[in-house]
């Protein structure tokens, strides 16, 4: 019978390495895949996933099991890290576009981050606006409830639903253009 997560987190707070290993085994894959889908950069996503696990090790006392599930808490940390990276990337891209000599012809940021061997749906997801991609990935792939997604993205359930409708609509459109 699996041990209750609240109990495992409490044990992590007392530096119990076995409890920590159990929680990392349960949550690291989901967090890594989430970051990969949001960022489209495997190495960066792995860094973020490990960073989230460091937060779990160092600040497990901040987690309140009465307020949220552990997976929601970890996804929120990962989401904030991903947003930071995306904002930084945006700033870098805007700087690069000012200096066009450095950019080789025919390349763009999407090509750099998503190698061609990926499935078309991964490319389509990468082309969605960040907020739509986040809502879709958290709901469809991470199996989080609309309430949890709203909590992670710091928005309302209505806003999450609106983003999901637009995201699914865009997926349909983009896949039609790829055919």
């Amino acid at each position, binding site marked *: 019978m699996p041990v209750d997560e609240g109990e495992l987190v409490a044990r992590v*707070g007392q*530096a119990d*390495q076995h409890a*920590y*290993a159990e929680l*990392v*085994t349960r949550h*690291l*894959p*989901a967090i*890594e*895949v989430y970051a*990969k*889908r949001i960022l489209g950069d*495997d190495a960066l996503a*792995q860094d973020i*996933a*490990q960073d989230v*696990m*460091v937060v779990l*090790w*160092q*600040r497990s*006392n901040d987690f309140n099991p009465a307020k949220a599930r552990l997976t929601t808490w970890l996804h929120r940390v990962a989401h904030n890290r991903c947003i930071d990276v995306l904002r930084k990337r945006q700033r870098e891209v805007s700087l690069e576009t000012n200096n066009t000599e450095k950019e080789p012809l025919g390349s763009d940021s999407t090509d750099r981050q998503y190698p061609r061997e*990926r*499935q*078309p*749906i*991964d490319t*389509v*997801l990468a082309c969605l606006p960040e907020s739509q991609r986040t809502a*879709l990935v958290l*709901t*469809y*792939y991470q*199996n989080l*409830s*609309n309430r949890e997604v709203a909590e992670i993205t710091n928005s309302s359930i209505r806003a999450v*639903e*609106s983003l*999901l*409708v637009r995201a*699914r*609509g865009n*997926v*349909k459109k983009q*896949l039609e253009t790829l055919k």
Partner: protein
Amino acid sequence: MNREEKSQRRAAAVLAAYGENQSAWPPDERADVSEALSQSAVLQQIRSNEAVVDRLLSQSSTVASLDAEQVARTIAQRIPQRLSFVAQVKGVLEVLGEWCVAGSWRPALVGSTTVSLGLILGATLYVPTEDWSQAEQYSFSVVGDVASDAVAEEF
């Protein structure tokens, strides 16, 4: 808009947001959406359209590749935990408390050390701060001055 139209509209919105899979729908709305679906061919068409999107989404090839056990071991062995001040104080007090109550000689040692420390501090740090006999004289002298002033005014 009547009740039926309202529920069909909501069912369409749920399908458009969460797709065809019932387990993805908000739990408190599943029954209503299912009922609306059973009564409307338009909703069934919407559901089959959303099923196409779900099938496409399921083709994603993104997978996890980190070794969870190794990550856990590396972090736990190399990175110190960051405890809050309260947790640190609590930890120190717990260790101290456990040490004090273990064995029969430790409580006696703790008690005698505390008493000895108190006696030493008392003997070395006690300094009489005020001489009350002088304070009494001063107050008498003030009263005497005031009284003499009053007597002087009368004259």
